[in-house]
């Protein structure tokens, strides 16, 4: 017969609550690393531009970057960010229109990417390539990297929309997708102001 040691007690683990959803915390840390990645690119651009002779920092054959067309793209991106913010409020308020608002946010985000693609096709057609000049190389690397992030973030929002429609979207996933898209939206004005002007 075995007797229980009176010194031993069953210790139940204390109930733990989540201060912040794990998905959101992971995304915040990831966005931090991405901010540093873009900071490195912008830093290299700024130092190279400052070091280049004035007449050497141009696109070939006197072409210029399309400022006005990109301003329209930027507006579409901001509209998308605002719609996502509204969709977040609607989702928290359990409103049924959150699905449509989220879809509209994805539409404007996709519009931004498509307009950027159209701009690229025009520039390549005019002979502006990665190898045509230092400005061209920086332009395609920085703006292209941003576009890749935009596409990835849109895919995340697409998954969030699909799950929301099916009624199985977790708050943590929505917050993580939202955070990534806000990063894409907020880093763009910095790139636009630095590269296009």
């Amino acid at each position: 017969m075995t007797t229980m040691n009176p010194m031993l007690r069953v210790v139940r683990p204390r109930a733990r609550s989540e201060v912040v959803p794990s998905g959101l915390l992971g995304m915040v840390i990831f966005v931090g690393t991405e901010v540093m990645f873009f900071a490195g690119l912008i830093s290299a651009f700024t130092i190279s531009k400052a070091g280049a002779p004035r007449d050497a920092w141009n696109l070939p054959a006197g072409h210029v970057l399309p400022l006005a067309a990109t301003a329209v793209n930027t507006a579409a991106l901001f509209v998308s960010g605002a719609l996502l913010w509204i969709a977040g409020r609607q989702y928290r308020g359990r409103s049924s229109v959150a699905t449509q608002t989220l879809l509209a946010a994805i539409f404007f985000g996709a519009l931004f990417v498509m307009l950027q693609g159209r701009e690229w096709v025009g520039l390549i057609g005019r002979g502006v390539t990665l190898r045509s000049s230092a400005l061209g190389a920086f332009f395609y690397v920085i703006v292209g990297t941003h576009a890749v992030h935009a596409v990835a973030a849109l895919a995340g929002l697409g998954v969030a929309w699909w799950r929301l429609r099916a009624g199985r979207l977790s708050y943590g996933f929505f917050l993580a997708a939202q955070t990534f898209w806000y990063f894409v939206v907020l880093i763009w004005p910095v790139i636009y102001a630095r590269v296009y002007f």
Partner: protein
Amino acid sequence: MREFISSVAGPRVVFITGTLVTAAPASALACPVCGFIGTSDNTWAYQAMSAMLTLLPLAMVGAIVWWLARLAAREPRHNGLALRERQVRRDRAVDG
């Protein structure tokens, strides 16, 4: 020997290094692109970007820690003071 280094040579090394860094900052500036073209813009860009790349990660880490600490303080189960207060109240109820 070790005592000599720690008592005399150590402070001298600190003094000489400090003097060099503060009195001759141009020699301490490790800018590989400054002076290459020779424009003042270039030096300014290098220094501004160095400051940005140094301060930005520190600011982000600080902001994340501050945000998590604020959230944890709001959450009663993670708040040590609230937990202790509940425990004391429970103990008093048992004693009374």
